[in-house]
């Protein structure tokens, strides 16, 4: 049997025995017949008679329980109803996501007084309504059970409630008076808010000698310093990816975690989508050490050691004619640099080079490269620089030194957690103890807050007033969507109070913006729209470049020795970033785009590394791949870096450089006393991964995100379970799941994909008559609406925003790691990741992302097998699921070729009226996160328009039927036709930053989905179309701007070999 061309897992690639066995069973478990052991049913522990007994008893019990008494329900109306509030109808408030330095204007959906969903604010010219997974998940943070519910004073390491704000103010002012004389330091993340900045300066003026330090856990110091040297601006430019025909990224994950990634992904999508009449697309080169999500979307990708990052930049600069000497590189890398340089030169003024490095020398060289390719004023715009990261690493070091030297009287900490995420967290911890007064405004007793003297929790952004300024003149506002859930007070309010002002922040804010915007009307309009922006966008502008320090930087890079042993790269995961939302179960359960792992971080290594370091981990070998993969337990590895070490499980990812190990930050949260973690930081973070921040190092100017590895140890027989979601959901050898074509081939022969389809369907009537002739079943009319979806694989980057949006919209449950390990994950939409290429050659690996959800087949295999007709088809083309009819046979899931149906193995969301269904002793052990999600507080996030599914029923994507019904009703009430894209959008569609998902009425020829299908007819295909499911979801084949498509080429070769 030949190797498969595309593989989700190594087992699939090798078609191993265990893999074959696993594909036979949709569900991993055997039937729950205890103690059967091959004996007859009657001899088993729970034989047929017992079953009948239980059946009889439970029927009788249920009847009795149900008939005893119907509870009396009360209906309590308002005494005096607020005028504009209609119970049952959602209000929308524009506000702004402002977490961990990222700024995204959003609108919050508020149902009956509680925010339940965030959508992007389409009025923003920067994010244009796009959201990321983290933005989508932020609404859940509001209802986090671990949030601190009142101000506390920490005495002997124990938090003690301070009963009133007045008492707290008194305590603080006494303490501050006691520390008078020594300067006060305000430590925050990057603050862009004009009002907050003004309040801070007013506050600092009251305390002479005091200062404000900005600290970013994911520092951009290197770029800021480099831009200061070369452009005289300590800022980050705006990158205009929409103007770039050639993009070279030197380790920047600009679609996932780097800079203003949402803005970039919108611009990037412009040149990645294909116009069939005139096919062209940008060319994207990626030079990196690990397979990042951005790298997975690149056309040509080259891996290198992190110590070579400077050399690659230098070589590229030399190739482009910048006056520097090219260092020695290995052949493949050199060829890649040459190729990229050629394309860059050919596209001068339409090209862009970005680098994710935090080393100012490298960034100086990158600036010189961009100067050489004429990026300034075209793809790099200095007219409106990005202000979301301003922290300079050395300032933080100075602060620590000052603390240690006793030169700081009081330290006020807001929104940052350096004990956890500073490279020298332990050092900061020791220094913090030396501050006379320390106050934290963080929302929980995190690693830093539990060590200070006073904590006054600030409200969540959905409970706050505020403003942001991501770029000069681009304001977006924060307004409360719910009154504060807990006894919290805004950071700004405290500063105002402690600087002796009598005004509140709300009043201050209103005054400031009313006067700034000119009138109350203008202020109210700005609040309503959520953003205030310049009337006309500034024209893209360059900046004067000074190459004075270039030679110095080049020399410094030239002196960097290429590492000899293994090297470590520390990176951010899409879901977790630096861990600002670490206790968010939606994010913890979101599979990583590349590794498909949930709940943990781990050591990423290449297949070659695994093969060479363990004698039983050759993943090209069937048996060994099984041993590695079918079982979730992963080999542990101990990595020594400098004098630090970390032990983590190994996850093998093709496309990783063979000399590199990657570890993500944002995990491993822990209180000083680990038993406090669940209460202080959150139930869900307990046991989730390891903290990699201590592995960062300081190079004298900036923090380095890579390091040489001093040594690795491979503890024998030490394993750790990693919950990955890539192993199930396979298509059992069916082809036609993913389709790809090179741009050249598509230009030359655009009909190729359709000819392939026609050939496949020829025996059953060809494409045209396939629907009728391919089946014995009758066809049914869709007289009015027929819902359909189109997914453009050229625009899906795998970021997972849709997955979390679906969680929030449809009350999809979080199951916890132990359940993901048993393949009980509940995501209605998943993003399948396929690899193709040579395992040993990381440069050859190509990746495909494919969002997979219920295809709403018109000839659905699941519908035919349901014994109780709980799943059936609607006249609008929806594959409907009636939860209350479902008896849980799971036949439908077995018969679904797309593997999109999800079964409720336990009562994950607290839907059942029988409390015993959550009893751990009867349903098996569930993770604490399930109980966090079941808390009455957290349950406030549930969408009241969607049924909360109980134990024992099947569920799946409904095309957001509640939204469809609402949209139709709106049109009916207004006596008009359905407005495409306005009345109905699915949650995944709305969340997608690159508009990869299009949805609408296919019967309407003017609808966007109809037009998309018509205009992209050559790329259109249906997944495993040949089994005649007639899906209502179509895909548009991926076009790669590359020379060869690995999967396709291998398939052709295999076919040739067969014939030969």
């Amino acid at each position: 049997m030949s190797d498969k061309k595309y593989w989700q897992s190594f087992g699939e690639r090798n078609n191993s025995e265990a893999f074959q066995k696993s594909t036979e069973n949709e569900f991993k478990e055997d039937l729950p017949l205890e103690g059967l052991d091959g004996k007859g049913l009657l001899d088993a522990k729970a034989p047929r008679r017992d079953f009948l007994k239980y059946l009889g008893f439970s029927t009788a019990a249920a009847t009795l329980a149900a008939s005893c008494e119907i509870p009396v329900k009360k209906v309590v109306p308002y005494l005096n109803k607020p005028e504009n509030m209609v119970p049952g109808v959602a209000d929308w408030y524009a506000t702004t996501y402002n977490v961990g330095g990222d700024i995204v204007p959003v609108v919050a959906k508020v149902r009956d007084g509680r925010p339940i969903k965030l959508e992007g604010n389409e009025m923003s010219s920067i994010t244009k309504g796009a959201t990321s997974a983290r933005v989508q998940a932020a609404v859940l943070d509001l209802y986090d059970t671990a949030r601190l519910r009142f101000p506390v004073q920490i005495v002997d390491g124990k938090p003690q409630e301070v009963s009133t704000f007045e008492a707290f103010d008194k305590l603080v002012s006494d303490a501050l008076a006691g520390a008078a004389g020594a300067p006060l330091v305000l430590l925050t993340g990057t603050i862009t808010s004009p009002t907050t900045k003004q309040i801070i300066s007013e506050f600092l003026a009251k305390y002479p000698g005091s200062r404000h330090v900005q600290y970013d856990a994911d520092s951009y110091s290197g770029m800021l310093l480099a831009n200061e040297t070369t452009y005289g601006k300590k800022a980050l430019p705006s990158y205009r990816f929409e103007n770039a025909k050639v993009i070279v990224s030197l380790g920047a994950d600009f679609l996932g975690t780097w800079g203003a990634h949402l803005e970039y992904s919108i611009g990037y999508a412009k040149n990645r989508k294909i116009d069939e009449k005139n096919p062209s697309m940008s060319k994207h080169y990626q030079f990196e050490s690990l397979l990042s999500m951005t790298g997975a979307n690149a056309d040509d990708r080259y891996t290198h050691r992190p110590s070579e990052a400077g050399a690659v930049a230098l070589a590229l600069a030399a190739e482009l004619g910048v006056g520097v000497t090219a260092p020695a590189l290995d052949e493949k890398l050199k060829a890649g640099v040459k190729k990229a340089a050629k394309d860059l030169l050919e596209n001068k003024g339409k090209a862009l080079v970005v680098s994710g490095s935090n080393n100012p020398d490298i960034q100086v060289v990158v600036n010189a490269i961009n100067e050489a390719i004429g990026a300034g004023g075209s793809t790099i715009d200095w007219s409106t620089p990005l202000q979301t990261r301003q922290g300079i690493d050395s300032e933080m070091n100075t602060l620590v030194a000052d603390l240690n030297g006793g030169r700081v009287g009081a330290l006020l900490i807001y929104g940052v957690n350096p004990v956890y995420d500073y490279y020298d967290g332990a050092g900061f911890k020791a220094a913090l103890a030396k501050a006379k007064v320390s106050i934290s405004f963080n929302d929980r007793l995190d690693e830093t807050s539990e060590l200070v003297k006073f904590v006054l929790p600030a409200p969540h952004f959905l409970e706050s007033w505020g403003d942001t300024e991501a770029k000069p003149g681009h304001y977006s506002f924060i307004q409360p969507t719910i009154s504060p859930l807990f006894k919290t007070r805004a950071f700004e309010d405290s500063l105002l109070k402690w600087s002796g002002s009598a005004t509140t922040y709300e009043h201050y804010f209103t005054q400031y913006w009313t006067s700034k915007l000119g009138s109350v009307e203008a202020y109210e309009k700005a609040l309503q729209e959520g953003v205030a922006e310049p009337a006309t966008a500034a024209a893209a502008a360059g900046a004067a470049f000074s190459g004075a320090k270039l030679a110095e930087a080049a020399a410094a890079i030239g002196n960097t020795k290429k590492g000899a042993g293994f090297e470590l790269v520390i990176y951010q995961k899409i879901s977790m970033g630096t861990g600002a939302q670490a206790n968010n179960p939606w994010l913890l359960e979101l599979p990583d785009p590349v590794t498909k792992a949930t709940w943990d971080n781990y050591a990423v290594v290449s297949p070659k590394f695994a093969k060479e370091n363990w004698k039983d981990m050759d993943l090209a070998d069937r048996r060994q791949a099984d041993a590695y993969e079918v079982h979730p337990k992963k080999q542990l590895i101990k990595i020594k870096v400098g004098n630090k070490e970390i032990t983590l499980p190994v996850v093998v990812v093709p496309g990783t450089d063979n000399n590199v190990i990657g570890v993500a930050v944002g995990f491993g949260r822990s209180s000083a006393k680990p038993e406090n973690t669940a209460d202080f930081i959150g139930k869900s973070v307990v046991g989730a991964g390891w903290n990699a921040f201590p592995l960062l190092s300081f190079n004298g100017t900036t923090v380095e995100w890579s390091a040489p590895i001093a040594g690795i140890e491979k503890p024998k027989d030490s394993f750790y379970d990693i919950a990955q979601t890539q192993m199930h959901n396979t298509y059992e050898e069916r082809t036609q799941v993913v389709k790809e074509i090179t741009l050249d081939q598509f230009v030359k022969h655009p009909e190729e994909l359709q000819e392939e389809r026609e050939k496949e369907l020829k025996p059953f009537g060809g494409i045209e008559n396939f629907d009728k002739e391919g089946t014995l079943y009758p066809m049914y009319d869709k007289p009015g609406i027929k819902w359909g979806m189109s997914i453009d694989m050229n625009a899906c980057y795998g970021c997972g925003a849709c997955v979390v949006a679906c969680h929030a919209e449809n009350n999809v449950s979080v199951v916890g790691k132990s359940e993901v390990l048993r393949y009980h994950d509940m995501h209605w939409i998943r993003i399948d990741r396929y690899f193709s290429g040579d395992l040993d050659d990381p440069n050859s690996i190509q990746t495909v992302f494919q969002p997979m959800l219920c295809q709403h087949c018109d000839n659905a295999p699941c519908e035919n097998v349901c014994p109780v007709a709980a799943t059936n088809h609607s006249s609008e083309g929806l594959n409907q699921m009636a939860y209350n009819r479902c008896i849980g046979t799971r036949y439908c899931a077995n018969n679904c070729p797309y593997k999109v149906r999800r079964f409720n193995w336990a009562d994950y969301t607290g839907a059942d009226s029988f409390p015993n269904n959550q009893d751990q002793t009867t349903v098996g052990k569930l993770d604490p996160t399930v109980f966090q999600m079941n808390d009455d507080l957290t349950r406030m996030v549930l969408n009241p328009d969607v049924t909360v599914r109980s134990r024992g029923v099947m569920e799946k994507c409904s095309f957001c039927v509640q939204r469809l019904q609402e949209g139709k009703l709106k049109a009916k009430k207004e006596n008009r036709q359905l407005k495409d894209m306005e009345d109905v959008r699915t949650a995944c569609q709305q969340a997608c930053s690159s508009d990869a998902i299009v949805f609408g009425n296919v019967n309407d020829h003017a609808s966007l989905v109809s037009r998309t299908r018509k205009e992209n007819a050559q790329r259109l295909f249906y997944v495993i179309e040949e089994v005649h499911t007639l899906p209502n979801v179509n895909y548009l084949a991926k076009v790669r701007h590359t020379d060869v498509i690995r999967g396709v080429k291998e398939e052709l070769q295999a076919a040739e070999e067969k014939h030969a």
Partner: protein
Amino acid sequence: MIHHRPIVKTFIFSILLSSLVSMGNTGYAQDATKGKTLFQTNCASCHSPVKQVLGPALKGVTERVPDKKLLHDWIKNNSKVLQSGNPYFTALYAQFNKAAMNTFPNLSDADIDDILKYVETYQAPTATPGEGTPTQKEEGDNTLLYGILTLILAIIMMVLLQVNSSLKKLSDDKEGIPAHEPIPFYRNKVYITFVILILFILGGYWVVQGAIGLGRTKNYQPVQPIFYSHKVHAGINQISCLYCHTNAWESKHATVPSLNVCMNCHAAINDYTKGPKLYREDGSEVNGTDEIQKLYSYTGYDPKTQRYSNAASAKPVEWVKIHSLPDHVYFNHSQHIRAGKVQCQTCHGPIQEMDEVKQFADLSMGWCINCHRTTKVNFGDSTGNGNKFYSIYEKFHKDLKTGKMDSVTVENIGGTECQKCHY
């Protein structure tokens, strides 16, 4: 069929009733219908066409004030007219304790004419919902009659069978054929089997019916914290349902009105003297004035000073919920009354006749579905003013034109599919 017929009948009857109640007569001009809507949204809280509420009864107003322009001015901005010193209105103002009328600057002259037309042509509903009851009783009688008839026939059959066997026994005796010992009928296996079979069928029927009825609360009529009579408000005083249950127009929930809505009228109406006597279900008489006092104690209102002087003690009323749907059912009031144009009475029964509200329908799925099967959707091909949303149903429009279909029901457009109500 057991459920089907009475429901269809009730349904048709309710439609008839509601149209009677709301329209008065059927040959009604378009502008008066518009006037009705305007009247109900703007005027009905204080006026009735035929009764004095907060303001005077309006029927005959055009005769009392023949100057049309003056009347328009009065309605738009009454304070201006009062300032001008019009003797009629000044007297009226004094008569109603100088309680100022709201101003309606938004109403156009045409709107006011429509309202006046409605008011003048208004006829108090003559039909009473009792009308339909005899038909229903007849139906019940028939069933009983058939039952008795069946019983008599069964007894006759048994007697004949007994006679037949006795005769056979006699003839056998005569012919000398040895006969078996006669078995009394209560030990006859055929009879026993027959009886068991009947008991099984009846028992099964009752069990099934009982099981289906679990959790259903038809005819539920709890005692409420305030004896609020829909009959007095919606029936006698003709207050539009939507005046209090405003949300039904916008939202899935109809909602019980907040107390500030009650106080719109009850700030001025503080006794119950003019209406008919009110009785509880147990026959005891209700003092309406006392019930209004309860409202004041909930709101903290002092009718003497006309101020909310006890606002601190105000608290919302905890009404007992009557109409409950299971959590997995999505029901939207605005869908039914705005898109579907269904009258409230169709599901809630003759609410304007109920003192204490009683659950009229069983709110079962079969009841929903039956209505969806028979209710016609406003495609409006004959009238030309159908809901434009349905223009996407090209095939149905064609079929209606060619006469292949005579009407489109909710079922035809997918109204009986699972995910229209369960998601």
